[in-house]
């Protein structure tokens, strides 16, 4: 079946909010307070009220916004937007360049009318960054139409009886919107393109985890009209959803009831109607901000600092002589930047890789605590601990020191050489329980002195047993 499809991918960037200085933190606790608002349909530049906007208004809803101490007046639509977040702009340039795009030297920050309540202002700010890029897929090049930088919407918490409740934590988080050309011709190619773009995004400073990337699909078959399917979380389900949509559109053609519409992707691979497809009238300029000008210097700097893709990174890490297992772990935990900076402290790639991945993992298991929590405790001390090697501690002590720090020791205490004299202790043990096998002694030693190096202990033991 011939299809014409294009992807629209939204990815959150890992930085503070786009038009204010609030941190991009999602909250689970109780809000500080709530604010009640209404929205009105307004006419865009063309003077016409947008169809999609009127459709929403006809519902005459009340919106409740949950406000946190990580919000400010900007998200509440009580203060004009601040200048655009420079870091977000820089990251979006990385993404645009990795997707082979040309950069717009001048663009206007736009207000995209959204009156479903998900934006307190009644619009979403969005600006074009790049155009005319491409990616390669096994069935040919896929063009990238545009890259836009925009603000994420508020999270919906509940909706009943004409009252929608939103949480302001997500509102304003920088999003990059990637729109491919309608070059995708099969469900398999759609999936491949989505995965490819996903790999490029993950090489950049983007947020990870559920909800941080959202994929929409524009799709039509000959004789039908363009339909936008919103909200694929999982590329896995894509092919099934596309096949279902093809079937649905065929049915529409048969019944002569095709229309431009927005539909939501459901977990079972089907879709449901959301609203009519919005028109051009929904965009008008953000008059509170100047034109966005991107200089050659900014683009050159982005080019110079361009992150490496996973495939390139593998090669880079291999050069350090790391084994595949450690390379995989470093990539999985996304610790490349940390690796680069710690390798400058101590020229021991294997140890650095273990410190960043294996050791925290083992400590987490041992102490029965989440990895992220353990890592968060250790991250600030990595450099100091590695700096002590061959001064107060040996390479073999590192894991033990980290373990103590996670248990609550201060860095200073953790670095204190164990007062135990291993040689003396092992000697005592052998005297207390004579006649055991080497393996049995090792078992006893490791149980009594967790954190000591097994190699060191076994060397001493062998010496004593001789």
């Amino acid at each position, binding site marked *: 079946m011939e299809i014409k499809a294009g992807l629209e991918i939204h990815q959150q960037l890992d930085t503070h909010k786009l038009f204010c200085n609030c941190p991009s933190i999602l909250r689970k606790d109780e809000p500080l307070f709530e604010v009640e608002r*209404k929205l009105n349909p*307004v*006419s865009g530049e063309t003077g016409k009220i947008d169809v999609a906007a009127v459709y929403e208004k006809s519902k005459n809803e009340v919106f409740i916004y949950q406000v946190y101490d990580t919000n400010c007046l900007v998200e509440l639509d009580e*203060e004009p937007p601040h200048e655009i977040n420079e870091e977000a702009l820089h990251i979006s340039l990385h993404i645009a360049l990795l997707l082979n795009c040309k950069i717009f030297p*001048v663009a206007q920050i736009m207000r995209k009318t959204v009156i479903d309540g998900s934006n307190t202002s009644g619009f979403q700010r969005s*600006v*074009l960054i790049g155009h005319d890029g491409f990616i390669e897929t096994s069935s040919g090049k896929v063009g990238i139409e545009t890259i836009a930088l925009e603000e994420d919407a508020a999270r919906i918490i509940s909706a009943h009886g004409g009252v929608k409740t939103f949480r302001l934590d997500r509102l304003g988080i920088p999003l990059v919107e990637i729109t491919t050309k309608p070059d995708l011709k099969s469900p398999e190619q759609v999936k491949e393109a989505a995965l490819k773009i996903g790999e490029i995004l993950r090489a950049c400073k983007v947020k990870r985890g559920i909800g941080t990337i959202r994929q929409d699909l524009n799709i039509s078959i000959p004789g039908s009209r363009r339909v936008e399917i919103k909200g694929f979380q999982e590329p896995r389900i894509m092919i099934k959803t596309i096949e279902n949509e093809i079937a649905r559109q065929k049915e529409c053609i048969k019944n002569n009831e095709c229309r431009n519409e927005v539909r939501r992707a459901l977990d079972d691979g089907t879709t449901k109607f959301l609203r009519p497809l919005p028109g051009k009238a929904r965009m008008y300029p953000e008059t509170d901000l100047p034109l966005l*000008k991107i200089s050659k210097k900014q683009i050159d700097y982005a080019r110079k600092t361009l992150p490496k893709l996973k495939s390139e990174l593998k090669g880079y890490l291999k050069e350090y002589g790391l084994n595949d297992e450690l390379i995989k772990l470093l990539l999985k935990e996304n610790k490349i930047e940390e690796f680069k900076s710690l390798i400058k402290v101590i020229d021991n790639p294997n140890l650095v890789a273990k410190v960043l991945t294996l050791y925290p993992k083992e400590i987490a298991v041992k102490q029965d605590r989440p990895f992220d929590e353990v890592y968060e405790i250790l991250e600030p001390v990595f450099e100091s601990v590695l700096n002590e090697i061959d001064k107060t501690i040996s390479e073999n002590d590192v894991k033990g020191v980290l373990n103590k720090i996670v248990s609550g020791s201060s860095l200073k205490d953790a670095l204190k050489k164990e007062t135990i004299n291993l040689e003396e202790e092992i000697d005592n043990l052998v005297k207390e329980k004579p006649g055991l096998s080497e393996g049995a002694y090792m078992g006893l030693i490791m149980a009594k002195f967790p954190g000591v190096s097994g190699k060191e202990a076994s060397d001493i033991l062998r010496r004593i047993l001789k």
Partner: protein
Amino acid sequence: MKEKTLSPGDYVRLTTKEREWTGWILESYDPEVILLKLESGYNIGVKESEILNVKVLKKFKEEKKEGIKFRRDESLPNVAMIITGGTISSRLDPKTGGVIPTDAEEILKIAPKISEICNIVKIEKPFMKFSENMDFKDWKILAETCANLLNDEKIKGVIITHGTDFLHYSASALAFALGKLNKPIAFSYSQRSIDRGSTDAALNLLCAAKYAVSDIAEVAIIGHKDLNDKICLAMPATKTRKMHTSRRDAFKVINDTAIAEISESDFKILKEFNAVNSENVKVDAKFNEKIALIKIHPGQDPKILEFYAQQGYKGIVLELSGLGHVPGKGAKKNWLLIIKRLVKKGVVICGAAQTLYGKLDPMVYENGRELEKTGLIFLKDMLPETAFVKLSWVLGHKNWNVKEKMLENCAGELNSRLGFEF
């Protein structure tokens, strides 16, 4: 210059060495940039120097605007509207990308529910200004326009849309110049322009309309009570001040309470008011323009007062510190002597509280008692801006006893019983 032939609204194809762009020309305020609206709705800038070729595909033709006709319901009261400018009557100009004044229809589109409350029968536009550009003469024009409407028996009340910056000055000026009113005057405003879905004008206008048909014959500022689009306050003209640059509840009543709380479904009276009556309103809008408002700050040289006097200023409102103090004997620069000298020369010098909240009391500290001896008039709990307008109005009248008039409660500017609102 090929681009000179382009006018905003033209549908064109621009060729640069990178590619072709098709879209509508927008007016650009950057001379080196051609602004183009793409089919997608996004606006981009193309550097003029990079354009190789331009083709106009379709010249711009002004589309006739569909006017919205508001039904007139004979059973509803009639209200007049005065549009003066400001954010509430500004909207985006697609040609320039800036914000421009708009017309009444546009404003009413925002609050269509007004047509269930009253008929807007008359719309006056005496001038269109951002309020920071207004002055004494505009107050006079506003007062006269207002009086004509109030004395029209077919009209129940007046709504004035106004910029926020100097709104509390205009409201005070009307309160003094029109004296005892016969009908309601509702000042309405917005802090978010009406071309956005979240405009606060919708609720403000609706509540202003409800106030305009009420029995309260007072000048009030009608605006958001808090951050919710739920309740507006009718705030007394002479006791209200803009206290925030951007929030929708920017206006706060100071040293007083609101007159009423108004929502879509409710109208709650909060205090005594002057009731609607059948008398005619008389305009007394003589304002003296030689009035200054000076805030006292540490280390300030009192010679500044002499400068004003030399420039012909007749009245000065000083924003005093604390309960009513100026740098005195213990300061390097003593204000007391100069104030005394100028008062003697005939310059009227009044004092209002820098703290805005609370009342002056010169008797508590020696500094205050010394200041009182200079002949400075302590304006009790009157807001500095209200004092400025009032002094201008009082000194606009040659034969009035200035001190007596300044201390007479003419339009609710003095409150003898301060409550707990703060």
